[in-house]
């Protein structure tokens, strides 16, 4: 079981069933929901070809509009379209590097409430805002067509003496 997780560098689509059995059963399944949903659709015999339009605004302010299949996470969509969205833990809710800011509050409110585990990671996200979410937890659905997601701009945040301001 563990070999697959820690073997050679592997592609993003690999199903992360490995993470389900945590020693204390505490953490909910850290499976990339997108992969599960897609597997379900495929299992039903129909391939879900419906896509929505999502615009990413990069750290430099460049806009990139892509089409995202319904059921795919924003993190996976970003990677498939060469958008520089970090995903250190590869969608297992163990980091905050895929932090995205939902530009329009209307779309933010359409998203499912973040779980405790996602909120725990958002606590630590750099440049957190009121409409911040983790990209690996935002799953494309038809109502989100036209959504804009901004990547937090890298600001000169670390002061001269090495002091790190407490994250908000």
């Amino acid at each position, binding site marked *: 079981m*563990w*070999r697959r*997780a*820690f*073997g*050679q*560098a*592997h592609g993003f689509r690999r199903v992360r069933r490995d*993470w389900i059995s*945590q*020693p*204390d059963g*505490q*953490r909910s399944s*850290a499976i990339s929901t997108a992969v599960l949903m897609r597997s379900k659709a495929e299992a039903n015999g129909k391939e879900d070809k419906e896509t929505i339009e999502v615009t990413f605004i990069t750290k430099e302010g460049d806009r990139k509009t892509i089409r995202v299949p319904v059921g795919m996470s924003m993190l996976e969509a970003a990677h498939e379209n060469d958008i520089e969205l*970090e995903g*250190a*833990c*590869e969608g*297992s*809710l*163990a*980091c*905050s*590097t895929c932090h995205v800011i939902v530009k329009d509050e209307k779309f933010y409110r359409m998203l499912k409430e973040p779980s*405790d*585990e996602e*909120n*725990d*990671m958002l*606590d*630590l*996200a*750099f440049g*957190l805002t009121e409409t911040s979410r983790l990209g690996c937890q935002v799953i494309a659905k038809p109502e989100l067509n036209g959504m804009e997601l901004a990547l937090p701009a*890298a600001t*000169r*945040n*670390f002061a*001269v*003496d*090495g*002091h*790190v301001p*407490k*994250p*908000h």
Partner: protein
Amino acid sequence: MKVLAMARRASRLGLRFPGRSRDLCTGSDDFGMPLHVCVVGSGPAGFYVAKKLLKRFDFARVDILERLPAPFGLVRSGVAPDHPETKVVINQFSRTAEDERCRFFGNVCLGTDVSLEELRKNYHVVVLAYGAESDHRLGIPGEDLEGVFSARQFVWWYNGHPDGKDLPINLNDVETAVVLGQGNVALDVARILLRSPSELSSTDIAEHAVKALRTSRIRKVYVVGRRGPVQAACTAKELREILGLKGVEIVINEADLQTTDCDLEELQSSRIHKRVFDLFCKSATFTKCAGRDKQLQFVFFRAPVSLLAAEDGIHVRGVHLQKTRLEGSHPRKLVGTGEFEELDCGLVLKSIGYKSLPVPDLPFDHKKGVVPNYFGRVRSSDATNETERGLYVAGWLKRGPTGIIGTNEVCAQEVVTSIEEDVNRAVVSNLKEVPGSVGLESILSEKNKRYITFEGWERLNETEMEKGAVKGKPREKIVGIDEALAIGLAKEKE
């Protein structure tokens, strides 16, 4: 056409023409001279810097030095064994190391095998990202008694760090442990002491540690903080996990959960602290449950005054604490109340912060334990704004020992931006020829120093995973340096 000419000129200088795509400037060695970079330290700080430099400059050649046989720093030796998902970032770091422009040099120590001066002569850019391998001291009597360790030493021990395996820790004759500090590392060490060994035996914990934990008699752990639950430095995920630990009763004094107006102000301005405080409040209402044979007690507003010796004068037997109080406002001051109490224990783990170590020829702020820097550019001294050409710091050595793995991504961006600015302004010039890897290899071969390549690490990695598979573990870490070197340095069969 003018734009094309400018792009070509920029390319000759080895600069990427802003905003143009790759097809206008080749960015290759035909026009651009390589930018030779040496990154010292292969933890998250070093790897994020390497990754971003390789992305930013096609002509970058990055060598990553690591004093241990295995790479990845605290991801391998700091993250707890029961947090495997936090280690997934290793996949990304491996992809960076596998870039043909990147070379890993394991078993090479700055200071012993190569000096900072030599590195600066052989590379255009040197980035020091070797973290913090020492500890803040309490500076109180009894600190050197047996049974008193820093949390870092204990973490290195259970994580199979080569320098931690001989820790003289005795868990068989001890029933109570005191952890000083309430950050995430404090929670890690408390959790490893209290988690059932059978749960730990399927993780990548070091074999000698799980063996010792199986016969451990520790049933009670105190986690002691000088201030209150509003100021606790741990974060929600870790606190949530330890509060839900199977078979462990949580003890919190409800009186410690009273808040003042100042506390409420602090909570309102910090999302992290608010969620942590809410967790403490929720857990205090848990009633005593049957079947919990271990106890975790959070002790607030107690500062350690001295560590008490047993009758033999050698071993620790308790901690002498002074009750504290927060006074004043904006900012509040921590004061002693003149009231004291004692906690009996046979093991003390100090989790009060890591500290970086200086190396010769490196400006260093001994008080803060960091290298003085200006957005990652090393300052020649604390007093001046002059910076050392081509010398940078990243990670804990730059910021102090705080933050999570992801913090290094942002930090690395800042450092790489500084490097980019310096290349653009020709403060650092890749047009000036330096030996790069070739120079380093020559220095090492003169000393007969063999280094482990990334392929060597992959051999070591495979071996660890094979050994672990037999025991139902993700890996069995090879803790002995000699054994690790034997595998890592072995020549590939032709």
